[in-house]
């Protein structure tokens, strides 16, 4: 099933600072919960893994991400990622466009437009569940990215090999996702 997700968030850092991270797949991966880059095939293609836990089900996606377009001038990146669960529970593919814009009052805004397609057990949970899980993952991602930016700004050592960040436990994500469905929230 295909799901479109649009997410934005703002950061106090400049667009240039943010772009430094967003244009480097390894740095981006280090912010995605449960993700890890395992191999750089070439400067545009990376292999990696991402672990998603939904209740007792653990899905270990193994796949590849390819940078389709990298526009340093306009600070736009287009990524296509495809992965299959190692045990054969399903697959997911995603096309993501990420952009960084300078904000007039200072700071910058990150805009991501993603198209996610899930096949398999997780897709049976339905659109709503996947949407909420994706929402929660993006929340975590943006939190991690902000942290990274602060680290970068404070001059913390740039990590050559990003460590694996704890996988999102979609069990608790799912619980809050279900609760989220019942609260009336303004649409983002």
């Amino acid at each position, binding site marked *: 099933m295909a799901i479109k997700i649009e997410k934005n968030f703002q950061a106090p850092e400049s667009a240039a600072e943010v772009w430094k991270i967003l244009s480097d797949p390894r740095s981006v991966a280090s912010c995605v919960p449960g993700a890890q880059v395992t191999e750089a095939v070439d400067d545009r293609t990376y292999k990696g893994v991402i672990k998603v836990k939904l209740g007792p089900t653990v899905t270990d996606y193994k796949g590849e991400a390819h940078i389709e377009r990298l526009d340093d001038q306009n600070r736009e990146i287009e990524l296509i990622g495809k992965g299959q669960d190692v045990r054969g529970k399903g697959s997911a593919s995603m096309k993501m466009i990420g952009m960084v814009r300078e904000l007039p009052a200072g700071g910058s805004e990150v805009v991501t437009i993603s198209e996610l397609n899930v096949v*398999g057990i997780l897709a*049976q949970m339905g659109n709503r569940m996947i949407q909420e899980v994706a929402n929660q993952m993006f929340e975590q991602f943006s939190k991690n990215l902000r942290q990274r930016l602060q680290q970068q700004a404070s001059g913390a050592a740039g990590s050559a090999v990003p460590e694996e960040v704890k996988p999102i436990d979609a069990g608790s994500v799912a619980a809050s996702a279900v609760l989220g469905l019942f609260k009336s929230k303004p649409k983002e």
Partner: protein
Amino acid sequence: MLAKTSPEIGGMGHPIKRKEDLRFIQGKGNYIDDVQLPGMVYGHMVRSPYAHARITAIRTEEAKKLPGVLAVITGEDLAKANLAWMPTLFHDKQMVLATGKVLFQSQEVAFVVAEDRYTAADAAELVEVDYEELPVLVDPHKAQDTDAPILRDDREEKSNLIFHWEVGDRAATEQHMKSAPVTALVKAFFPRCHPAPLETCGCVMDFNSATGKLTAWITSQAPHAHRTVFALVAGLPEQNIRVISPDIGGGFGNKVPVYPGYVCAAVAALTIGRPVKWIETRSENLQSTGFARDYHMEAELAADTDGRVRALRVKTLADHGAFNAAAQPTKFPAGLFSICTGSYDFSQAFCEVDGVYTNKAPGGIAYRCSFRVTEAAYLIERAMDVLAQELKLDPAELRRRNFIPPEKFPYPSPLGWSYDSGNYQGALELALEKIGYDELRKEQAEKRKRGELMGIGISSFTEIVGAGPSHTFDILGLKMFDSAELRVHPTGKAIMRMGTKSQGQGHETTYAQIVAQELGIPAADVAIEEGDTDTAPYGLGTYASRSTPTSGAAAALAARKVREKARKIAAHLLEVSEEDLEWEPGKFSVKGAPGKSKTIQEIAFAAYTNFPQGMEPGMEAVHYYDPPNLTFPFGTYVAVVDIDKGTGEVKVRRFVAVDDCGNIINPMIVEGQVHGGLTEGLAIAFMQEISYDESGNVQGGTFMDYLVPTAVETPSWETGNTCTPSPHHPFGAKGVGESPNVGSPAAFVNAVVDALSHLGVKHIDMPLSPWKIWQILKEKGVTQ
């Protein structure tokens, strides 16, 4: 025609309480998951997440290492024993465990056996499968496109078309379409739904290596057919296979096919040497076992200006999923769909059906509909309403003008059926009277002025059940007769064994009532047994409302054979000639001397103690009944609905169901069947669909999304009967279990469309969810 029996005897027509209830109300039923055998182990299925993919590797080492795991079987293992594929009930074959590729999401890929079900589930998680995704086909309309992926590379013909079937006179029908002053067209989709009986499918396979006998406990509506299929597929001698269908928690057609889980469990039992239990989960049930319907239909009517119909032209696309696992009689790939001329007198008709493969769960089983009759009844009843709307005629009046009149029976339909009897007018008038039709139409007119939405929907359906005569019907070659074996004991009690198998229809009571009617032995004294192939006479099982028409007939005829023998014994006891005796249920008396009589109990005793010289002792008879024709129950249902403009929610205010199933055995049981079937029709019309997204992911694969109505959504049903016996059935009965599921969807849809017809709405496809209705209301500008 039928003799009256006393309530103590409880023959035909008596609403006696059910004999089987005692164990169920105490929780002492014996359902498949209640079967416990010493040393029993558990099976769990590993399933495909993909709708279409090549399997490049399966790794089972991790799973096998888990303590408590006894076996992990894959398609490759089965292929060595030639069991990776099995025949379906409709001359196709189906993978037991996937080999090469998978063709639908949730397809069986590997079978894990372990000491307990939790370990089996854990081990299933450890099985690793590598897949290469292939392009997915979920739109049946695209199945025959030149660029459509060919799903079945096991077939010689590289095509997704399974069959093309046609019946009727195409040319003559076309003529009418061209020349008739009025034509009406409706495109009606009957969504894929699922019978979802409350108990899922399962089995316990027990192989005794010392005796070479396989005892197969299976949730099977057709135990003998299953036994024969097992014998042919597994190469086991048929006398060494015993199929036992225990108490079954609902079937509705879902428990007719042979499922991969049964075969895997049998193989596991044979190889491990311990009994293997396999019970599927609800998700597995909804996502992989026999679905129903999924018919994309088009009907065109040609009529005169007064509404008199001339011809019917029907074209249907049938989505069968990955394998044609439809349980259908061989000559009828589209089942009895050609009943689509319904209750109406058409001079010509033509019907064609194309069946295609898609990447969805296999099947097309008969869900409480006698082989596609629901689809047909839905189509013609919708078409009639569309015609009525076109002609601005009242839908009841249009039907009246077109009903096959009683004097035309037996009626030869233009599509080849000979309807045994019918009085459609009678059912319609009774239903309209019960619902207060004229008043409702007045109310509707007034409400319309105030902008309120209210609708009345009529469905005057004809059913075709009791398959079927041997000259036309067989399933996998097995003719569709059925049987009864009756034995009366010395003390006048009896036992009767049948070739059918109840899943809640009350056979332990109704069959006993047939014996009570024919022999006067109280129904309470007659034990009924079904489901054990070692003892029951061969039959084709219970589905398609066939038990009363076939086995019921066999029971009556077996009882009559017994009665004939009883007459001889009575003559011997009373020292008169047989001609001097007259019969009333329960005894033979000498004509003119009523004091001189012998009860059936006395006669039974004599059959063992004092029978005439030269007569074979004992008192029993077997009858295998080959029905001369099908039977044609019918009825009229009327639904009254009110639509909430703000939410699109449809409330069923009233529903009257008038059924005619000929002579009734137990009116209480008939009424219960009608209630249940109407509730299923309600669910299908308003809240159920199993659909697939473009990647082949199942939507509606659990009870969270596949909705079953609760007591809150279900309205109160009002029922009634007319009685037009079947002239060819031994006691004039027709069968009724499926009528409510057959006739009701059209009544609901007709009612909703009727509520919106003044806004220009001609047809809405099911399910009529509030969201769907609300969108229409918004489009028409009437949401306030």
